[in-house]
């Protein structure tokens, strides 16, 4: 029994007030695929981390251009892929950024990517300094623990 391929895309302003919207949008898109309540909570947490990064890191306050986040959601036989994309400053060294505890903001934990890695079945990060960042996460229902 395979779910039909489905796709949705939302674009929203990169502001903290939209975090709740992004979490609920992703979870309700995924909800028809047979995820448990706990798995849907994991999707929300991972989306929250990725979108928070766009708001905090991608668009420094000095930038006056349009600060948008685009969230792409797609189902496949393996589950749902959620990609979160910004057109902000980008990440020069992706491997370093993904290291647990690594942060460019002393007020933060540097654990966002580590959490996303733990929550998603797979995580891919692509980025170009000055052009933006895309974080793609695959979630498969029934993967357990």
């Amino acid at each position, binding site marked *: 029994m395979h779910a039909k391929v489905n796709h949705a895309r939302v674009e929203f302003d990169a502001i903290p007030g939209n975090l*709740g919207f992004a979490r609920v949008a992703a979870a309700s898109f995924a909800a028809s695929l047979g995820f448990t309540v706990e798995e849907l909570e994991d999707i929300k947490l991972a989306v929250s981390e990725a979108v928070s990064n766009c708001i905090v890191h991608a668009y420094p306050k000095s930038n006056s251009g349009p600060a948008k986040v685009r969230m792409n959601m797609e189902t496949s036989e393996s589950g749902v892929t959620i990609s979160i994309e910004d057109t902000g400053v980008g990440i020069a060294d992706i491997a370093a950024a993904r290291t647990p505890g690594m942060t460019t903001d002393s007020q933060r934990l540097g654990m966002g990517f580590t959490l996303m890695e733990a929550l998603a079945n797979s995580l891919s990060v692509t980025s170009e300094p000055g052009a933006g960042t895309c974080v793609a996460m695959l979630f498969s229902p029934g993967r357990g623990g």
Partner: protein
Amino acid sequence: MIRCTLYGKSLVLEVAGELDLNNAEEFRTALDSLIDSHPDVRQVVLCMDQVTFIDSSGIGVLFGRQRRMASRGGALSIASPGPQARRALDLLGVPSIMRVYDSREQALAAEAEVRKCTRK
């Protein structure tokens, strides 16, 4: 955003809702002003049963307040996290840094015990 009750030298705080980037600053300011206005308090117990969501922005605030309490010889502990909060706390290794109790009663009993021991 925080309900506050004083039990002897323990300050019990109840917080509700979603703790993320949208209110992390408000959360931090509220916790700091409660900590500052109770200079004698050594144990702060944060009850999280009404917290429906927390991510690294919210947990970052907890770590910072734990450091502030530690610097006055005290501690911040967590009580009664719901399933989502428990999962996020576990994934971030919080239980190795702060005490996490299943209920407020357990937290208060354990904290009273800790005080008794340290007084001896």
